[in-house]
């Protein structure tokens, strides 16, 4: 879906009514159900908070975010892919503010070299690349950079099927990571000239004489301004101005048998050195265009600059960031505040994300467990919580049934978020992942009781508490934690 968060999409249905339970109800229910002292301990911190229920405006979980340690866990769940025990300890001793600084100020660690990348035609199985990325998510010293790389992968989408060369997808991943924390102006130039993107949205096939509109349209509709902020004529004129880009020249070619049974061989490109697209002036448009209200002879940088003059761009990015990191239905005033900050900083990502993480909205009670973990976030957090490093194959295999295969988004609008992750198929597959993951890690499980506090802040429903207490062994207790609704949320 595009991000047209227009007021006209607001449902006419009645105001949401408060549902679920208060802290008092939760405690009462747990006691009534005979789950014993253990569960009550799981549910609560001190009695003082009982008389001050949070002003729940969308979340019925009892927010513990008044406590520093809970805020740190909340931050790590959203700004990274959850945490290992070691990462949590380190962040807890630094505290919330210093952890925000540390996340924002640390330069992204480079991913390890992916060995299969120079395969002719990029014809290695995509699962290898998916596993390579998941392994890096699990082990990287800079998980915030990985989280942002995944965010941009879902925003500036390409899929390996149409890119038709997995080496180009590998390159795109390297580029997205390097640019993830920079600024939107330079990012848009790299996105536009990225070889996989040139294929995916057909800019490599576009010429000034007969422009292909695909990239011009999605650049404005999905990547920057959003629908309603440009005309069909802008799409056409933009397509002219953007024409001329081509894929880089391969380092060499190799003749490869692609069909053994029928002895079919093909000459395939071999890309060994990463390079962006190249501009071929002979394919460009040589004339003036009228784009977003101004006439002139403009090049690709000119297109990007004009797009960034439009206030709609910062609004769209800010709204998407707010939905992915703060609240599924962010307040318009909040989004505008983020957008203004973003634009004033000349689209600096660090400035935007700092204002997100340090906002009052980020740690408001209503934001607690207000977001749903994407399948990748769920699985990487589960592996980190278990202290398991050998789960990347299981994680890659399980993604599709939950609706997320890396390098293979459903369409150019990327993956949906939050409630859209829930269907009969995906909830069953989330549980099946937990079964598979525990099947591989049964031998050396960390303490499940400690995990209830480390990963769920001890805030659990009566059902979760009861089942946890009834569980016969450590593996069953871990199953309850990881399959619980609490762990699906962030």
């Amino acid at each position, binding site marked *: *879906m*595009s*991000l047209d*968060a*227009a007021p006209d*999409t607001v449902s006419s249905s009645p105001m*949401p*009514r408060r*549902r*679920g*339970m208060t802290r008092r109800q939760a405690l*009462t229910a747990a006691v009534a*159900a*005979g789950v014993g002292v253990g569960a009550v301990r799981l549910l609560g911190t001190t009695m003082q908070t009982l008389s001050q229920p949070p002003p729940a405006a969308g979340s019925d*979980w009892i927010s513990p975010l008044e406590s520093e340690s809970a805020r740190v866990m909340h931050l790590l769940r959203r700004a990274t892919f959850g945490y290992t025990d070691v990462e949590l300890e380190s962040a807890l001793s630094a505290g919330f503010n210093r952890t925000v600084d540390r996340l924002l100020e640390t330069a992204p660690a480079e991913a390890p070299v992916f060995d299969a990348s120079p395969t002719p035609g990029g014809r290695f199985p995509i699962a290898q690349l998916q596993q390579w990325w998941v392994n890096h998510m699990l082990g990287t010293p800079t998980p915030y950079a990985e989280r942002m790389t995944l965010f941009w992968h879902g925003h500036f989408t390409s*899929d390996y*099927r149409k890119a*038709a060369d997995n080496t180009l997808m590998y390159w795109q991943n390297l580029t997205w990571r390097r640019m993830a924390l920079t600024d939107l102006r330079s990012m848009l130039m790299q996105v536009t000239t990225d070889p996989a993107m040139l294929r995916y949205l057909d800019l490599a*096939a*576009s*010429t000034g004489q*007969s422009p*292909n*509109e*695909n990239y011009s*349209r999605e650049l404005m*509709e*999905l990547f920057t301004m959003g*629908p309603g902020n440009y005309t069909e004529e802008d799409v056409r004129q933009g397509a002219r101005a953007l024409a001329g880009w081509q894929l880089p020249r391969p380092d060499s070619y190799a003749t490869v048998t692609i069909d053994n049974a029928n002895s079919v061989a093909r000459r395939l490109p071999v890309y060994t050195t990463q390079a962006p697209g190249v501009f071929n002036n002979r394919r460009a448009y040589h004339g003036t265009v009228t784009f977003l209200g101004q006439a002139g002879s403009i090049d690709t940088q000119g297109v990007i600059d004009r797009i960034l003059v439009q206030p709609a761009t910062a609004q769209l990015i800010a709204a998407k960031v707010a939905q992915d990191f703060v609240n*599924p239905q962010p307040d318009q005033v909040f989004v505008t505040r983020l957008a203004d900050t973003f634009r004033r900083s000349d689209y600096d990502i660090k400035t935007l994300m700092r204002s997100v993480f340090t906002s009052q909205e980020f740690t408001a009670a209503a934001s607690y*467990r207000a977001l*749903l973990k994407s399948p990748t976030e769920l699985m990487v957090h589960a592996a980190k919580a278990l202290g398991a490093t050998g789960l990347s194959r299981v994680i890659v295999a399980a993604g*599709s*049934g939950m609706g997320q295969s890396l390098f293979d988004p*459903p*369409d150019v*609008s990327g993956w*949906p978020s939050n*409630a*859209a992750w*829930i*269907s*009969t*198929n*995906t*909830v*069953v597959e989330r*549980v099946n992942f937990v*079964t*598979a993951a525990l099947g591989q890690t049964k031998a050396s499980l960390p303490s499940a009781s400690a995990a209830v506090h480390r990963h769920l802040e001890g805030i659990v*429903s*009566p*059902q*979760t508490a009861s*089942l946890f207490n009834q569980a016969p062994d450590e593996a069953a207790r871990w*199953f*309850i934690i990881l399959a619980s*609704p609490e762990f*699906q*949320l962030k």
Partner: protein
Amino acid sequence: MNREIGINQLKRRDFLKAGLVFGAGASGLAAGYAAVPDAFARAVYAAKQGGVSNDNVLVMIQLAGGNDGLRTVVPLSDPALHDLRPVLSGPMVSQALPLTTDFGLNHNLGGIKRLWDKGKLAIVQGVGYDNPTFSHFESIRIWETGDPTRRQVDGWLGRTLAKAYDTNGHPLTGCACGATDVPGALRDLQATMTVIQDQKKFGFTGGSEVEAAVGALYKGTPGIYGALFDTALATASETIAVLRTSSAEYQPLADYSDKVKLVYSSQNQLAAALQLAAELIVTGTGVKLLHVTLGGFDTHYTELSRHDDLMGYLDSAVSAFYQDLAAHGKSDNVLIATWSEFGRRPLENASGGTDHGAAAPLLLIGDPVKGGLYGSAPSLISLDDTGNLKYSVDFRSVYQEILSGHLGADSGDILGATFADVPFLRAPVPAV
């Protein structure tokens, strides 16, 4: 964005439903939440008794990305075609399978052509809506909600499900096959529906113990996603029980070949999805509204081979599906309908492809249809000011005929208006 709206709006019934399903294993838990006043539950159930009571089934096939209407139902005698499409027009005209002197089907639609010969294919030409948008996502939403003004957030089939069907105890009444998320057309927070990516894998790998534990875990879940989670798990569990029986009984009586070359961006194994649809229909699981998707139609580039492949894929999957239903004696009440967010620009681009367009034909297939051409094909000379085909039939006219004539639902209530008749059905059922 509409995916996010109103997650608090589930009816109490949906919330309670989850509580009703799992009696065992969770008794005594959360006593305050599981207590369901029976009278309330019955009242909700009774309210649906006035709904649809026939056995008619609808299968919607989404051709995602914008299907090229001119390459699907080809104008054979319009001289303007060659000027607009110097590269693409040649083979598409010479190889087309003639339906009349003026129109032919894409040459890869041979199986569907045989259904035409038997009077089981209706083609509605020039389908679209006013002031078309050329954005995939805006237009998909318009088609999904049936609302070009973009105020409606629920899908037209979701509304049908919520208003006209009793889904209590019938988790498969609305079902998306071969997908992982709820298609927008079926989305409605008041409706219960199932999504099945692959029936062979649909189930808890940990077995009944895990299923029972998860059933107890997701009950009265707090928070804004609580009811969605609980309903999804409860519906999944009911579905698993139904599938367990149906898988045992079903033998496909047609060859669902998956060997046709897959096209980029096509994650959707249409043949496999339709085979699942056939299984659900043949084994009497109570399916009524089914949705499947074939992707890859956004043919900006080298359209010739890509679109031909897609047509072949559509043809083999639909042909097998029809053959399978007929061999099981179940084809008489199943209507198959295609839809796509838009057609493509009549003028081809330099990449041997076409950009986003407007009006296009829809295919309606099966025993319930009265074969023939409906609507009128758009002129290739009198294009609109964006260079696109003008529509002659509002897409909601097609929905209306499906809703009132095939499903027997109150189309005016669901679509909020009435539209011109397109009488493509043989014997419309009396509306409720």
